[in-house]
């Protein structure tokens, strides 16, 4: 624990809370009797970004683009293959298992599925209190008080402390998951599609809860979603991922008003708007999302891209800055 608090003091003001540099997470593809590695699934391939304290970064992409793997790699819930992750200046990848465990209290995660993310055989008290019991040597009575307080904070009644997860609805379960993440008072909360599995009317409750909690505690969020309209609502900056790479990263207003990558444009166009007057008439993006095992050469988006040039098929585009705080991975960005 101490090494982190020392770092905290040393941590300069301008240093970002989280810095991810050239992160790569590959999963080996094994085949044959001897399970030889015949190739790699490049789930996360050279991803870099930073999150400042109190900032919300939205991470957007379609299924299989590597956004969840990125989140889990940051927490080292899956081991990254290469790259650096700095949290408050500490190199997360260099930590030993025991140090990592004490670091994780500062970075917590909220999951998408409110059903599988809560242990069905544990009471709300033991689910929410688990982190406290591991990290703080407090008497059970005090832990219970803290749990009751946390439940209240996420809009649940403290009466529910001895209930089991199956007695709650999806929205309430998601609140329990949030209380669990809050218990250790983290400075970074990774939200992995926290509202995707919820009903429309419950979604707004949880989004507002997350907004309120952020205002109160000044968390930083890494907010992962496939839904651009939810991300626009909550994020300060947005990164768009496609097949393991961040193809565009910019401030929220910049990205939504001046998208530069053809994929971002198509993604924005593809969202059905709840407004029949704005019924769009753009051609939807053609083709299928390629699988990670069979990545296209050159720019990974070129088989679906309308602005494709010969260079796109052969060379990976560099990350270019179109304006300060707006970078795009494209040979011919839209200006």
């Amino acid at each position, binding site marked *: 624990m101490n090494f982190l608090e020392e770092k905290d003091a040393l941590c300069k003001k301008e240093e970002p809370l989280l810095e991810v540099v050239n992160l790569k997470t590959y999963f080996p593809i094994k085949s044959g009797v001897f399970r030889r590695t015949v190739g790699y699934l490049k789930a996360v391939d050279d991803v870099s970004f930073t999150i400042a304290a109190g900032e919300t970064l939205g991470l957007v992409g379609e299924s299989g683009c590597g956004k969840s793997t990125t989140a889990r790699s940051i927490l080292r*819930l899956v081991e990254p293959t290469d790259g650096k992750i700095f949290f408050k200046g500490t190199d997360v990848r260099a930590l030993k298992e025991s140090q990592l*465990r004490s670091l994780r209290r500062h970075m917590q995660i909220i999951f998408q599925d409110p059903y599988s993310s809560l242990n069905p055989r544990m009471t709300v008290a033991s689910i929410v209190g*688990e982190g406290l019991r591991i990290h703080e040597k407090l008497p059970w009575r005090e832990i219970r008080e803290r749990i009751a307080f946390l439940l209240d904070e996420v809009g649940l009644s403290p009466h529910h402390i001895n209930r*089991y997860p199956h007695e709650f609805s999806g929205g*309430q379960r998601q609140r329990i*998951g949030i209380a669990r993440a809050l218990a250790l008072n983290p400075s970074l909360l990774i939200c992995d599609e926290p509202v995707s599995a919820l009903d429309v009317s419950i979604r707004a409750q949880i989004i507002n809860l997350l907004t309120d909690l952020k205002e109160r505690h000044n968390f930083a969020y890494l907010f992962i979603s496939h839904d651009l309209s939810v991300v626009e609502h909550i994020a300060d900056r947005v990164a768009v991922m496609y097949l393991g790479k961040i193809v565009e990263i910019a401030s929220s207003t910049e990205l939504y008003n001046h998208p530069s990558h053809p994929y971002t444009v198509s993604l924005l166009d593809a969202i059905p708007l709840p407004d029949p007057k704005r019924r769009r008439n753009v051609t939807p993006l053609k083709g299928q999302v390629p699988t990670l095992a069979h990545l296209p050469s050159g720019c990974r988006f070129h088989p679906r891209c309308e602005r494709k040039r010969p260079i796109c098929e052969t060379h990976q585009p560099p990350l270019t800055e179109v304006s300060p705080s707006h970078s795009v991975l494209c040979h011919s960005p839209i200006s």
Partner: protein
Amino acid sequence: MNMEPGLQNPTMETSQEQPARSLWSDALHRLKKNRLAVFSFFIILIYLIVAVLCGAGLLATNYDEQSYKIDEKGNISLNSYSPPSFKNPLGTDIQGRDVLSRVLQGSWISLRVALTMSAIYIFIAVLLGAFAGYFGGFIDDIIQWLYQTLASIPGLLMLIALTFVLGKGLTNVAVALGLVGWVGLCRLMRAEYLKHKARDYVLAAKAQGAGPFRIMFKHIFPNTFHIVIISFSLGFVHAIMGEVVLTFVGLGAKAHEPSWGRIISEARAELAREPAVWWPLLSATVAMFIVCLAFNILGDALRDSLDPKLKE
């Protein structure tokens, strides 16, 4: 449309009235609805009570007492093979001992064998299954190799071999049964651990800073415990039958021990007599049959009611 949203709107009216119910109490509730299972449970309860009373020396204490009879000429001889009567409801055996008492005592022996065996095989199966499933990789390979090897040797042969190594006798039979019987449960536990370790709640526990042993035994184990219970219930049947088979081939209970296996193996000769002495065989077989059937029914009912498909 100015409702007070967000934090201050506790949304609880749905589940306020019911008391907290764990999945276990739900399962018990379902189990109670199965009449046959409840009936089986009571039979098992009676079996357990009888067994414990016999073990404590409070019931059927006369199982080893020989009885005598006096014929018309005044000769005293062993009251062997007396058919069922008021005095001996299930008759007597070759040495004039009461068959009912011996059958009752047999329940205590089978219980001892079953508990010893279960303790051993459940311990091995849970430990190895959890390690194999949770850690995977090299550890998994070794454990899988171990149980695949074991499973490829015919069970009875393995049991006989082990009992020869350990020595004859009931305790060693139970130990042998335990050392051989863990493969099935271990496979199930490994599969369960594989399934559960991919669940988000395990990731959440990791993210909270829980170590591997805490995750394996505090978080995942309660989710697999129903399998242990079912296996335990059905395992009783294996223990009882295993004792009978091993005693029958001459490896289990010694001559004076009133185990069901002993009674049944002695019946070989008795049935060949003229008139046939059928009551010891019938009594022991029926006792074994009823207990095994009850355990089987209860085991199946437990499987249904503890269905791991969690409530929505």
